[in-house]
């Protein structure tokens, strides 16, 4: 049984490795996520953020601008996840009152 699990896991890892070597190489400035224009001639998010973050929010740290403004709803979701964790722990561990 254990051997079968390890075999499944190894083949899964092998599959991922085969896929991973077809990804753009590490550090490629022209990979689809890093370049400035995609195949549809539209803007790519990463390059747009680099070029416009300071102009849009007067904030030098691009990550902060993306976190709080461009993708602000992700961060609201993150805050709600934190809140959910707090409520979940309260719900699970607080002794029953009354």
């Amino acid at each position, binding site marked *: 049984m254990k051997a079968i699990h390890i075999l499944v896991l190894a083949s899964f890892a092998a599959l991922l490795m085969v896929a991973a070597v077809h990804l753009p190489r590490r550090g490629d400035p022209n990979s689809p996520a890093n370049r400035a224009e995609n195949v549809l001639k539209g803007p790519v998010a990463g390059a747009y953020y680099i070029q416009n973050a300071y102009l849009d929010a007067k904030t030098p740290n691009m990550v902060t601008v993306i976190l*709080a403004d461009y993708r602000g709803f992700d961060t609201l979701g993150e805050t709600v996840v*934190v809140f959910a964790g707090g409520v979940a722990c309260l719900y699970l561990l607080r002794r029953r009152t009354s």
Partner: protein
Amino acid sequence: MNEVNRDLLLRRHMEGPIVSPIVHVCCRGLAPFIQITGLYVFFHGHYSPGGGFQGGVLLAASIIMLRMSLGLADSQRIMPNRLPIPLAALGALIYAGTGLLAMLWGGSYLDYSFLPLPMLDPAMLRYVGILVIELGVTICVMSTLISIYDNLLGS
């Protein structure tokens, strides 16, 4: 061994300060510095790594450290047990409310350039808006982590 540990831990937290004065003094002395660092990290998130979440974790770490050294009873003065969850809700509300304010003033949700502050251009408004919502994140993260610690301990 394990049971002894557990009892020791709980007794320390229920009854009061632990025996060693060195630990006591060190923790009390260290806590304000951690808090200052947390506030710095929160306010300086615009210019360097940092921001609401990291600042919130640092503030929570300082208070958790006080809880560990002073005991649950004494550290109640700093952050009462009942407070964290309403405070976390308040933090998330600051965030959600800022977005809602922008929406009520005519923009999309979370579009800070529509915030009703006079005499600021959109870029500055975004700067301010980011600061406000980071404040909400800080409060929420800080109080939630303290709440998780309290609940894990008090279960």
